[in-house]
Structures are given as C-alpha cells and as structure tokens.
C-alpha cells in the first residue's frame, strides 16, 4: 500500500483519481444505449469474420445481393419487434408473409391488378389479417401467444391449399411490367429497392417509437398494461393498431419477396416467426415488453441473417443451421430474462468504488496538548435560539435587521426575530434541502439547495431560481449538467456566485457514500448574473463543501470535507485560475467557512477523523466490502457527535478552536456566522441555533457590511 500523499491541486491528479474501470463499467451499465452494444459488437464481428474467411464477401455485388436477400426478413422481424414491445407476441408473422406473398401473385396474375394496385391490395390484405389478430387480442383480450399461433396454423393451411390450386397458374403466366420488375430487381441510389424501403420504414419507425405519442403509449403498455390503462391510455385500440402494423409490415415483405421470386410454394416463410423472434430478442428487444427499438431489431435480424446465410454458404446442412439458431434463441432468451431483471442491481452493486485516500497525519486535539485544536468547552453553554423549533439548520445567517435565518431539513428557511429571537416564522419554503446561504447586494438571500440548485429569496419572501444546471463535462458518462448537491455558496465583489456541488455521483440522502468512496466527485461552479451563465470552474474536486470569498475578493476558499483540507482558488490577480492548499492537516472534516470581523476566517469541522476512520480511508477494499456487507447505520463514520469551530488566518494558520467536545449542545456543527460581537452556530442535525459572545471583537461588524457596506476590506 502506497502512503504517498498526493498533491490534490493538479487537475490531472484529480482526474486520474476519479477514474476506475469498475466505476466506468457501473456508469456504462446504467446507460440505456449500453444494452445493444453487445449484439452490435457480435454483428460487426460476424461481418468481419465472413469478410476474412469468404472470398468475394466484401464485394459491392455481394453486399448488394445480401441486402436484397435480407430486406424481406427485416420487415418480418420489425413486425415481430413491434408486437414484442407492446408486451405481446406475433407468431403469425411468417404465415402472414407467406399469405401476402401468395396474395401479391394472386392480385397480379389472376386478377390482373396494376403494380400500384397490387401493392396497395397486398398491404391491405396484411392489415386485415393483422386486424383479425388485433381484434382478438386488443378487444377480446385473447392471449397473444395462442391467438397468433392459431392464426399461424390457419393461414399456413390456407396458403398451402391455395398454392396447390394456383401454382400452375402462377408458373405459366407472365406479366410484362417495368414497374413490377423494378420492385423485384431495381435499385435506389445503388441500394436494392427493398432495402431502401426498409431503411425508410426504419427511420420512420424509429421516430414513431421514440418521438411520437403512439410510441410512448406502446412502450407504456408493454411495460405495464395495467398502469397504462390507469394512466388513461386506450389499450385496446393501441394493441389493435399494433397488430395491424405488424401485419402490414409482413405484407410489405411479402410484396418484395413475390416481386423478386415470382413464385410461391409451401416452404415460403416457414420458420420465419421463429427466426424473427430469435433475431429481435438477440438484438435486445425484451420478451417482457416495453423495451426495444427498431435498430435493436435490425441488429438482431442482421446477425441471424448473416449467420444463416454464412452457414449455408459454408455448405453446412440446413437442419444444423436451424439447430444453431435454436441454441442462439435459447441463449438470447436466457440472457434477456436475467439481464433485464438484474442489470440495475448489478450496476448498483458496483456503483460505489472506494479509492485509497491517505490523509496528512492528524494534529492532536487533546486538552492540554498545546495544539490550537485542543479540546475546550467554549461552546457547551452556548445560548440556544429556537430550541426544538428548527430542524437541522445547516447554515445560519443574519440580516441587516439582526434577524437570524436557518436553512432546515424540511426545505424551509426559518427566521427568528425579536430581541431574544423568540419570534419564529417560515421565511420561505424552497423545498429540497437548503444548505449554504449568503445575502447579495440587494439583500436577496441566495441559498444553495441540495437536490435543486441555487435559489434566491427576495426580502419579501418570494422564491426565485438562480440556476439549476451547469455545462456538461464532455468526457463523463454520467450526465453531470444538473446540480446534484449544491452545498455552500459565496458571492464575489462582482456579483458572481461561487458555489460547491459536492458530489455528482450521489444525492443528499446518499452523500455518506461519497465520503466512503473518497473520490473527487464534486466541483466548484460559478454563476455569473451578468450573462446568466453557469459554468464549472473546478471539476473533479474532493467533496467541496464550505465556500468563502476572501476578504480582498481575490480568491475563493474551498473546504474539502473528505480531504480534511482547505484550498484557495484565485479568481482575480496575477495567480488567477490557480489552486493551492491553504490548510493541509485539519483534524477533521471541514464544513462551512465564513469571514471573521478581524480579517480572519471561521471554519466548522462537521466530523473528527478518528484513527480507525483514517485507517479505513487508506484501505479502499475494506470500505467497499463494508458498504456491501454492513448495514448503512453500522458503517464506520468519522466522529460527528461534537461541535468544533476553528479560526484561521489569511495564511492558513489556525489560531484557535471552540469546542463542544461531546456534543452536549452542538453536535454535527456545520456552520457559524459572526454578527455584532456574537458567533451564531448551526448544525446539520441539531435542534437549535446557538450563539456565544465573542470577546474583543468589532461589535459593529456584520456580514452584510463586510461584503457590501462599510466593513469591506477589498478596497481601501
């Protein structure tokens, strides 16, 4: 185990720390588009294999002929896919295809329809057969499997009977029509006509499925028929339409097949329902319904087609090919069932990826040790404000009228006013989990809200949104454009709001997982009111928590909770854009930072690093197994039942500490705010706001004056 302490100021170091193969895999698995990746790879691999092993496979003529051969099967597979997405199945696709093949020839040779008439009449025939399925399944609520199986048997028998009767007629009649020949052998821009039409249908089908009300309703029905009905979707009509579409698609296949072959026999389309089923399930259209795209169906279709075609060309007997396809179907169905059921679980199981985090040795906190962090009881007897009237004021702030505000776990900003703060009111309800707060120049209260973003409250209590998204990191799989957990903020002299988004992988409720993970998942974000643009300033940051613009307005101080450090990021001046470590070895997990009246800074430590916790941070495997094997309430945590406030200088020297060492009055202390000679205290899980009198400080100093009024230090 390496014990080198890395320098966390370098972007590349932090970027590397945020990477792990497991993490990548877990994020990949949560992506919708990841599912067809495996069949797609198989498809490409098959194509490459045949290209290499078979001479002439990659010639234009061969590819063109393959496309011509495939297209009709493609239509049939598409019909199957749509019925599967609706939550049903259409076993009659092969039979409808055969029937329509016969119907085409019948309309052409026996009834003598013109080409366009033949096409329309055949499509209508397919639609009518599909409608029969649709009425039975949609309106009469018959089981799709049995219904279409019966349709398959009846159609197959009828087609065979009709074939026997008309075979000689078809064989002896010819039609001299360019249009008809074009249907059979023509090309569109070098692409066989049937493949071109299939492509068009695919594009249309994709838009229909993914962008139209029909498609959404269809997937809703497939996912849960009952829920779809409760949502007001007309399930009967939708299912009816689905089988009509399926029938029509098969008919389209039949037309092209007839145009190409000009004959019919008892083997036409035999077994295609089974091949089509194999194809679409293989492509990733779920048998359980509600999931699938036309492209997945086509990927699967191409695999099955290439395999069949390739095996035949290699001289392997047809029944072996059937057996191979059968085995593939078996495997695909098995994988489909297991995968769709367990994918989310697997992804969740490997989502947490602890990294090794070796912290600087912790300084002593023992009373009498002479350390600036030594235990004392200066906070134990803090005066309580709003005792049991406020739930978890993570941050506290005071306005120009000396009223105190707390951001609480119930999504409120609670305000206490009056000489002894006895008057409580809900200043505003934002929702989410309001955390850090700051007043802007116009006395709007700007609040970082976990789960929502950054919001503002006008002095009259009206809530407005400041921002809830930033630019997306182009190389990250997880979409990080939304603000997951805005934690603290501060406002620079030019009005820019700098805020921390402490994790992009977890939420307020699961942020302990982020601490356990020990990776740089957070970021510093800036909102510019002049342009109304939000942008990420520092990416890949270790749990950035407290944010404070320095007294001179030139830099932003950032508290990193999981690293137990304070950083300085320069926003103005010669070192603009550079990051440096200000305090390296805090004895605990840093939380909010705020300005002090004497030109120094206040810092709250929400947790204290216990030796056992530090040891666990150096051992990622232990933490991984712990989050898996131990219930969350039993995880090893840093010590959090205490209150600790530090004061440090502009140079990062810690001057002293204020403690409630066993959390009698102030446990999980997360924030403090100096105001007119008092220090106000807030805690993430506490039931009060506290305050203590500070000795020998400027009793006229307030936060608002220090930022926007007479107490500013950024201009002299």
């Amino acid at each position, binding site marked *: 185990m390496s014990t080198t302490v890395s320098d966390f100021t370098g972007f590349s170091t932090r970027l590397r720390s945020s990477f792990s193969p497991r993490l990548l895999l877990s994020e990949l698995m949560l992506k919708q588009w990841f599912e067809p990746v495996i069949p797609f790879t198989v498809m490409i691999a098959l194509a490459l294999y045949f290209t290499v092993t078979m001479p002439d496979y990659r010639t234009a003529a061969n590819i063109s002929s393959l496309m011509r051969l495939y297209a009709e099967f493609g239509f049939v597979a598409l019909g199957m896919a749509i019925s599967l997405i609706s939550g049903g199945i259409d076993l009659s696709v092969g039979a409808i295809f055969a029937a329509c093949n016969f119907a085409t020839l019948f309309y052409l040779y026996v009834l003598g329809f013109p080409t366009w008439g033949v096409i329309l009449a055949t499509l209508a025939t397919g639609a009518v057969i599909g409608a029969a399925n649709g009425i039975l399944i949609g309106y009469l609520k018959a089981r799709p499997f049995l219904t279409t199986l019966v349709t398959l048997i009846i159609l197959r028998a009828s087609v065979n009977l009709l074939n026997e009767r008309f075979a000689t007629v078809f064989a002896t009649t010819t039609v001299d029509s360019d249009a008809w020949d074009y249907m059979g052998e023509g090309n569109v821009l070098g692409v066989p006509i049937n493949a071109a039409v299939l492509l068009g249908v695919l594009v249309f089908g994709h838009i229909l499925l993914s962008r139209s009300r029909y498609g959404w309703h269809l997937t809703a029905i497939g996912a849960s028929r009952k829920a779809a009905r409760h949502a007001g979707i007309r399930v009967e009509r939708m299912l009816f339409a689905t089988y009509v579409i399926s029938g029509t698609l098969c008919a389209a296949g039949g037309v092209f097949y007839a145009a190409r072959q000009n004959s019919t026999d008892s083997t036409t389309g035999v077994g295609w329902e089974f091949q089509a089923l194999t194809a679409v399930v293989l492509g990733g259209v779920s048998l359980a319904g509600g999931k699938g795209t036309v492209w997945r169906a086509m990927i699967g279709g191409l695999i099955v087609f290439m395999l069949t075609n390739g095996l035949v060309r290699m001289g392997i007997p047809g029944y072996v090919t059937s057996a191979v396809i059968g085995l593939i179907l078996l495997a695909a169905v098995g994988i489909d069932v297991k995968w769709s059921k367990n994918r989310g679980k697997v992804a969740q199981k490997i989502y947490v990826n602890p990294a090794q985090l070796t912290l600087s040795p912790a300084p002593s906190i023992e009373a009498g040790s002479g350390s600036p962090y030594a235990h004392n009881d200066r906070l134990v007897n803090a005066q309580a404000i709003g005792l049991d009237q406020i739930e978890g004021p993570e941050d506290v702030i005071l306005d120009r009228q000396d009223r105190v505000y707390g951001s609480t776990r119930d999504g409120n900003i609670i305000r206490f006013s009056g000489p002894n703060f006895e008057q409580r009111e809900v200043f505003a309800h934002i929702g989410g989990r309001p955390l850090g707060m700051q007043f802007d120049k116009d006395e709007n209260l700007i609040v970082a809200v976990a789960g929502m973003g950054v919001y503002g409250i006008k002095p009259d209590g009206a809530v407005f949104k400041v921002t809830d998204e930033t630019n997306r990191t182009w190389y990250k799989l997880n979409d990080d454009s939304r603000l997951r957990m805005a934690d603290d903020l501060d406002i620079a002299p030019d009005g820019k709001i700098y805020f921390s988004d402490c994790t992009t992988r977890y939420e307020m409720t699961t942020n302990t997982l982020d601490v356990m993970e020990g990776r740089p998942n957070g970021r510093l974000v800036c909102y510019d009111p002049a342009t109304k643009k939000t942008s990420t300033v520092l990416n890949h940051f270790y749990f950035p928590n407290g944010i404070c613009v320095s007294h001179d307005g030139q830099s932003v101080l950032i508290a990193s909770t999981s690293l137990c450090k304070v950083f300085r990021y320069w926003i103005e001046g010669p070192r603009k854009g550079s990051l440096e470590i200000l305090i390296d070895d805090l004895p605990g997990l840093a939380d909010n930072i705020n300005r002090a009246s004497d030109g120094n800074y206040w810092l709250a430590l929400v947790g204290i690093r*216990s*030796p*056992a916790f530090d*040891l666990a941070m150096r051992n990622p495997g232990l933490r991984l197994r712990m989050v898996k094997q131990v219930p969350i*309430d*039993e995880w090893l945590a840093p010590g959090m039942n205490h209150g600790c406030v530090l004061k440090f200088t502009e140079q990062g020297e810690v001057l002293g500490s204020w403690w409630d060492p066993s959390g009698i009055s102030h*446990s999980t202390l997360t924030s403090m705010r100096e105001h007119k000679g008092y220090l106000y205290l807030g805690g993430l899980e506490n039931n009060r706001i506290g305050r203590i009198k500070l000795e020998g400080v400027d009793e006229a100093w307030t936060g608002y004056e220090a930022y926007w009024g007479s107490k500013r230090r950024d201009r002299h």
Partner: protein
Amino acid sequence: MGAFTNIKRDLEQIIFRNREQNAIPAMDGAISPNNRLDALPSIGEPIPGADDAAEGPDGALYVSGGRIVYRLAGDGYTNRTVFATFEANVGGLGVHPDGRVLVCVSGRGLAAVDAHGRQTWLRQAEDQPLRCLTGVAAAADGTIFLTDGTTAYEPDDWCRDLMAKNHLGRLLTCRPDLDSPNVLLRDLYYPNGLSITPDGAGLWFTESWKHRVSRTAINGSVLGRPTVVLNNLAGYPARIAPASGGGFWLAMFAVRTHLVEFVLREDEYREAMIRTIPPSRWVAPALATTNHCHEPMQFGSIKALGIEKPWAPPRSYGLIVRIDANGDPIESLHSRVGGRYHGITAVREVAQGLVIVSKGSGRVILAKAGVTS
C-alpha cells in the same frame, strides 16, 4: 489480502450461511430492549473497576473492584468495608463452602482468603502461570473450578485477545487447599465465568468470543462432555449465576455489532489497527462509552435533533438475561445507548435481591426482590 482470499471468504459466506458471524441474532422476544436496568438504584458510591460479586455465608456481599475486595453488609448493602487488598486488579470472586473467599487476581493467580485475612495461593497450572483468571466456583464437596480466559493476556487486555481472535482459554480444577491443579478443557474462546448448577451435578461456563454457554456434568473433579446450552448470543457473555426457579442469569458485558463482526473478518485492517492504534480507539466492543471523538463512531449514532438514539449501534451496552431450565431466555434487563449501566460483568441472586455489577460505570446495582419476575 489477495483477491482469492476475498473470493474464498465470500464463498464461505454463501455456503455456510448459518455461521454465527453472519447472523447476529435480533434482540427480540424476551431480549427486546427495555430500560429496566437503567431504572434500578445503585449501592452507594461507585467502585472503580467493579467486576464481580459473591455472597458470603454470613449474608455479606463481597465485591471486587480495582485492587480491593470490598465487603458490603447491612440492609441494602450500604455498609462498605475493605475486605482484602492485592497487588494487582481483582476479578472473579467465589465463596468456598468452608467460608474462604476465592479471589482471581490479574496476572497472579487465585487467592483464597479466610476470615482472618490469611491468604493461600494457586499461581500456575502445568507450568503455565494463571494470568487471566476470570471466574471461580466451588462445588459442595469443596472442589474448586476456575476459568482462565486466555494464556496470552491479562484480563484488562481482553480486547486484544478478542481482536487477535485467540482461543487460548482453559477450564481448570484444583483441590480445596488449592493444590493439584488440573486442566480440564483447553482451547476455549475466552471462558469468562462459570457456575455450579443448583443440583451440584453440573457446571455452566461461558465463552465470550464464541457467544455461547456450555454445560458439563461434574463428578468430583472429573468433567463430562460439554454440551452447548446457548449458542450465537447477541452479546458477549460474562458471568453466570443460578436463578431461583431453575435456569440461570447471564451477564453480557457488551453486545455484538455488525461493524465489529465485519472488522473481525477483515484481517488486514484488524492487524493494522492493532499495530497502529491504541486499544481504546479500536473498532471493538467496550465496557463504557466515553464520547471522545476519536472513538470510532457509526453513522447510526449521529445525534438527531439533539437526541442520542437509544437504538444506535452500541459501542457499549448493559444487558442481563434470565434463561429458564430449558435454555430459553425468559426475561432481560437493558441499559441501552446513552444509558447509565454499561459493561455488565456479573449478576447474582442474593438474599436481598439481585445484584448486578456494571464494570463500565463502576456501579453495583441492587434489584430488590419483586423487581424481576
């Protein structure tokens, strides 16, 4: 620890699902948490390091604490005098049928003290010193039985023995004159207390690291084959004492937590912890919680709205359980997280009621008759 070790361990957890380290039993039924222990009064001022209690033939109560054995007499045992003082901490106590008080002395052995204060000693058995005697009991015929927790450490270092996953404990016997010691059982998982059954035909003893209570028949100083009476307890058992109406009382000096069981499975972490961290800061059970922020904490222990949750994962806990003659728990008294009396090392029925010794708080508690069912 290589990947293979982890796979092997994971497989073991799947195959041997009922291994007790995988299944800390829930405290329910007769062991449902309550506050009954906290409600009891304690006798007088604290006795730092109070460890065990025994009732003398004269009705007085002998209590060990620190290096002193106290004699508590009178109504409510309020009259406290020093009975004997030793060079090292004293632990298990017993009273011999002939009236001598038997005292387990840390690192030294067993002392028998008669009414005049004369001491006789048993210092070793089979060339090994008796450094960690945890309990002593004498049968009606005068034969003395002893539990030696471990040959590796003294009693105050019990936590090291747990974290080292030792099973070096012994059950011994000796004659009434402390002569002819004989090792009856060895390789026990920290035997931490014993008691002769009321019929005199058997012996109960506890094994803390295996969370179990065994019973064995005795015939003179000959031991029968031990059988497990209670297995996979929710806590670490300490002393055991007969209960009126059959069965026995069991003191648990701490309860098991998922985190400790987990760390016991994590060899690399545990070894690093033993090597680099002082024992009071280990992830381990404790007799008392100091609330120092360097003590390992668990997320469930975070105070919510100023309240310390009684159901938080306990670092220390107070628990005694009454087991009936069939081996089923029928009653329990708890001191939950934040409670007064943690680290219960002894419980004994005496003339004035039930005496409970909380080593964590240094308190001797008296439950007058009628408090328990």
